Each structure stands twice: as C-alpha cells, then as structure tokens.
C-alpha cells in the first residue's frame, strides 16, 4: 500500500478554503489501495507538489498571491488538473465578499508584514490555469472523489437531485407563499416544494445522493446546475426553477426570484452559468462530473 511506487501518484493542493473537501477525501478511504498520495499538507509532511505527479486535485479559491504562486507552480508539472469544490470552481462562499465595503476591509489588511497579499477578489482556479475536470459540490461526496480519481468517463448519477431524493411531488398540495427559511417539522416523504420550501434540487445536478433533502433540508444547489443548464445563462436556470414552482405551488414568481438571490443560494447558483470572468465561454458540460 504505502510506498508502492507502481501506483499512480496524486497530490492535493489546498488554496484558500475550509478544508471540507480534504476531509471528504479522507472519508473516502478506497483510494489508499489504488493511488499513491504524494502531497497533501493536511495529512502528509511534504512541502511542494513533487515532479511526475499525475493528478492534481485543487480545492479552495485563489484569494492571495501565495495561492497564485502555488497553483501555477503545481499545475505546470502535473498531467491532469481537477478543480474540486465550489471555491476552486467559482470562489464559493468567499464570493459573498465581492462587495465594495468588504473589499475595502481586505485592502486594509495589506498593511500586515510578511503575509501573503490578498487579491481584490476571490478567483476560480481556471482564471490562472487550465482545468481538465470540474468536480462540484460543497464538498463533493467521497463517492464523487473516487469517481473523479478512478473512472470519471464512466461515472453515472441521476441528472438531478430529485432523482435521488425519493420525496413524492403532489399536484394538490399548493402553498401560497414560501414558508421562510425553516419552521416547524417537515413532513417526511413529501416534496419540500409542496411544503413551501425553496428547494432547487429539481434542476441541480445529482450525484450527492440527496443527502440534504432526504433528512428535510431544501437543496441549496451546491453541485450547480444539471447538464441541461450548465452552459446557459443563470436566468435560463432560474426560469426553470420558476416553472417547477408554478407547476407545484401558487407562490408568486417575485417571491421566488427574490429568494433565489439570497446569500445562501447565491453562494452556489452562479458557479457555472454566470462564469464570464474575462469574457471566457462557459465551461463545457463534458468536463463537469
């Protein structure tokens, strides 16, 4: 197992993020027999990605100049780069800080000595290097990590979260308003939309096994849009969410649109569709697991 030099070599580069992606990867232990982990500061004491590493998983956003340096240096020497998690793909939760007053605070931190300098905003990694595969999720499940490492081409999952959720959609249970964030206990087995929750699972890519909606929490979209919407503008996706709510509820459209733009959803909802940073085309769905 360890030290077996015939196994393919992979490395994990953590930029500015929460380490949740790394924790998820440690939760998947199957790679231990199939890969040789050569760099991952959270669990291995080595100080740089070694030469002849095959796969580089990158988590976290590019938040400071040291992130830029480490990312460019590491991507150059590997065969394949995988962007892991929302932060690496779009900046993630740190994107909520892309507001003037927050930026002013960051700039004030520039005064500190010897510390990596903060960039004006959190950037996705493909603003700096080419990415071969995107693995969305906050974080991606251990199962998705294994698929990305071992056989991404043949990985099969439901196209949307609903396909993995198992709650029943009803025609005759039509709330008139969103019930707010969360109040009281939800009914098991019945679609959260029928119960007035703002759940966007109906157009969010599957693969997560509906781990939030099954125990009763509405999907916030951390895996991003399904293949049908991934290369389109966000409004197309929002309209789709709108249609689902029209079919199942009597909630006014304005209420839905406003809620879709609230922080807990906007952390995730723009991670592919409104990716126009630098005027680049949207990422191809073939590259997204």
């Amino acid at each position, binding site marked *: *197992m*360890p*030290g077996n030099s015939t196994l393919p070599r992979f490395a994990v580069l953590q930029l*500015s993020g*929460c*380490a*949740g992606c*790394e*924790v*998820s990867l440690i*939760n998947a*232990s199957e790679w*231990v027999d199939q890969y040789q*982990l050569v760099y991952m*500061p*959270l*669990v*291995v*004491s*080595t*100080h740089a990605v070694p030469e002849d590493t095959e796969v580089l998983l990158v988590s976290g956003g590019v*938040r*400071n100049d*040291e992130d830029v340096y480490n990312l460019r240096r590491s991507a150059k020497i590997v065969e394949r780069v995988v962007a892991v998690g929302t932060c690496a793909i779009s900046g993630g*939760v*740190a994107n*909520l*800080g892309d507001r003037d*007053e*927050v930026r002013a*605070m960051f700039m004030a931190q520039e*005064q*500190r*000595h*010897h*510390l*990596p300098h*903060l960039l004006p905003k959190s950037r996705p990694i493909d603003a700096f290097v080419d990415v071969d595969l995107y693995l969305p999720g*906050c*974080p991606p*499940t251990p199962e998705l990590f294994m698929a990305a490492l071992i056989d991404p081409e043949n990985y099969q999952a439901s196209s949307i979260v609903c396909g993995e959720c198992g709650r029943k959609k009803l025609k005759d249970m039509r709330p008139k308003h969103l019930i*707010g*964030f*969360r*109040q*009281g*206990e*939800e009914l*098991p087995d019945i679609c959260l939309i029928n119960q007035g929750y703002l759940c966007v699972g109906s157009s969010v890519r599957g693969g997560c096994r509906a*781990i*939030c909606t*099954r*125990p*009763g*929490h509405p999907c*916030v979209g951390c895996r991003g849009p399904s293949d049908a919407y991934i290369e389109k503008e966000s409004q197309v996706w929002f309209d789709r969410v709108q249609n689902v709510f029209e079919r199942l509820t009597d909630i006014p459209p304005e209420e839905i649109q406003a809620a879709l733009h*609230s*922080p*807990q959803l906007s*952390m995730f909802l723009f991670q592919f569709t409104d990716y126009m940073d630098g005027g680049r085309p949207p990422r191809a769905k073939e590259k997204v697991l």
Partner: protein
Amino acid sequence: MTILRFPLSRIEGHARVEMEVQDGQVVTAQFQAIEMRGFRYFMQGTPAEQMPVIVPRICGVCSTAHHVASVKALEDIFGVNPPELAKEIRELLLLGQLIQNQATSLFIFTMPDRVGASSLFHMDESEADPHQQLSLAQRSLKVRQVGTNLIILAGGQFIHPVKAIVGGVTSGIKREPAEAMLREVETLLPMACELFDEYWEMSMAMGERIGTWGDDQPAYYIASTGRTRPQLNSDVIRVLGPDGAERASFPPRLFRNYLDYEETAYSYAGQTSYQGQVMRANSLARMNLALSMGTPLADAYLEKFTHTFGKPAHPILLFDLCRGIELVYAFERSIEILSKDLDYEDTSLPYTVKDGEGYGLVEAPRGPLIHHYTVKNGLIEDAEFIIPTVHNMLAIERALKVAGERYVSPEAINLELEKAVGRVVRAFDPCIACATQ
C-alpha cells in the same frame, strides 16, 4: 540575528512558524496564520436564519461546531428553547465531530511524529503486531469513520451539516438507523481503545527518546464542559488557574469581561489572553477541568492519566493523550444516546424572527466557540466569531519559544528543532481556517 522559518503540515490550514535567534538565544517565536477570507465582513446583510447553513463553511473540520453555535446564537436572540430530544440529537452531532476530530488529530496528524514517518499513509509497519489483519492506516480510518457516520445520522450533510435549525432539529432518528449506528459504534469501540493503547505506548517511547513532555511552564485553562462530566453543549465557560483552582465561570455574553483580544501585524489570526495571562484551550484544558468522564472506559483512562501525570497536568504533549481519552468517551457517550428512543416527540418549536443581540456557545474539539450576532430588520448587522484556536495563540508561541531554547545553543541549532516545532504546534491542534475566518 538569524530568522528560522518553519513551514507546517498535518494541521488544518495555512500557517508557519518564525523564530528569531541571536547569540544562541531564541528572541521571539511567532506563529503566523497566512490566510484569510473575511467571514465577519461578508456575513453582513445576510438573512439571520441562513447563518446555520453558511457558517459551517468557515471550516470543513469544525463545521459541526459552527453549525450548532450559530443555531444557539439565533435561539438566544429569538428567545426559543429547543425540545430535549433536539438537544440530544445535537449532542450526538457534536460527539460525531469529537470522534472525527480526535481520531484525525491522533492518528493522521500526530501519530507519524511518534515513529518518524511523513504521514499515516507512509508508515513502516514491518514491526507491527502480526495478529492485526488491518494496517494502522486502515484501522485509524475505520475508527474515524464512526464520527463521520454519526455526523451524517444526526446532521444530514456529512461535512456541512444541515439538520440543526432554530428551535430544534429537522427530524428525530428512527429506531432502525439508530440501531445500525449503535452496532457500528459498539463494534468499533474496542478497536478505538486498542489504537489509543498503541498510541499511548508510542507516546511514552517518544517522551523517553526526546527526554521531555514539554518544558513550558503551567498556564491558565479555559473550557465550557461540565464540572462532573463532559458537556459539549453547555452555556457556561470556566477558567482554571495554573494551580488547579477555578478562577472564573461566566456565560458567553460576558466573555469580554474576562478575555482580552489583540491583533498582531504578523498574522491574520488574533490572540486572546485571560486578563493578560497565557491560557490554553482544547483537550488538556477539559481534562484538567473535569472531575470525571462519566463513562467506564474513559474514566479508567483518565485515572491512569492522572496517576501518571498528576492533576492539573501541564506538559503540552499531554494534549495528545487527552484527545485519546475523549475519543473513547465520545464512543461510550454515543452508545448511551443511541440506546435511547430518539423519535418520541416533535424535534422543533416554532419561533418568530426578532431583532437583537445573541450568543451561541459550544465546546468545539479545540475549545469553547462563541458566535455573537447582532440582528437588525431580520438581517445580520454584525457577526463575531470567538475562536478557540485564538485562545491558544499565546500558549503556542510561548511553548515554541521554550522548545526553541532546548535546541538552540550559541554553537549550533539542533536539527531536532524542526520536529519539535511540529510536535508543539500539533499538540494544540490549531485550526487556521477558523482562527482567521
């Protein structure tokens, strides 16, 4: 003047140590946190009720503690007290986190130090017990997985939990999944104890090899666990003096009366002190504050620990052994909870969003964590995160300086220093993502 710079690994997040050495003396030792995202600032304007879903993203290692602290802060503002069953399910969630974290710190972060390996996945097992069918790495990950599975059962999502909500939790735990989990915890408890025994032996051998468990002086201790047994979900913070006598006991809303906070120019993390005194949070603090663990196996380990090292115990490498005692405790306590009916009443109460100021406290694996929110028009006006790792910053730096003095002389710098720096920092198990947010 020579500056020694040590990169760090096998800790959560990005940090490094810098020591200034002159004429064989360590002049300063700095622990530098070198990342920051700015949660306090970008949370402003967020609908208050969304906090429990957003703030776990402060840290994927400590997410559960942030999730529960956030819910408690909002409950403090809205004036709602969740049902008992919801509190039990939250405790189970926090126990899952304790197992996952202590197993990670013990086996992934610090066990390699005991045998001179670069990681758990690169350990030489040629000398291992031939009766063991599984490698140390495989057994460690299995024990750690129990914590992850508890988090999934009690928290829904496996890294950033979603089940705790203002007023309670989204649902109870049905008999069947509770029993399946109970069987898993019971089955793996002996493996957890066995691994901890091996770890204890390796630690004793290391203590003998390096000739110390830590030369640093005694310090103050801070924790929010109960007096008679651990309580991860309490509402009171306690401070112990270096002599073992209790010096203070206060609710989270009064923390400013007791704790002084300062920022530094060389780190994105601040530092707190107990009225100017160096204090320590995390496992050793809890062990020094607790009379007993309240579960049989953990109590036996605590007795062995106290018998060997005294009470209060101060050498910093003992933090690591205390994590093992807590690992065993968390297994046993989970068995107690999972043996009960966890689906007998409504698990949440209705509430109305109100404006105001509130505090949420939990004992995270690294110590007492406080979320302090001000809500105006239903939106977050300010969100302050009082982080256990920040309470340990002065203690880490003092211990680093002391360790430096052991290995630096006017003639030479002993190469063991680099390893000592790693051991000292990992004993405190700092979390940089939390400390800087």
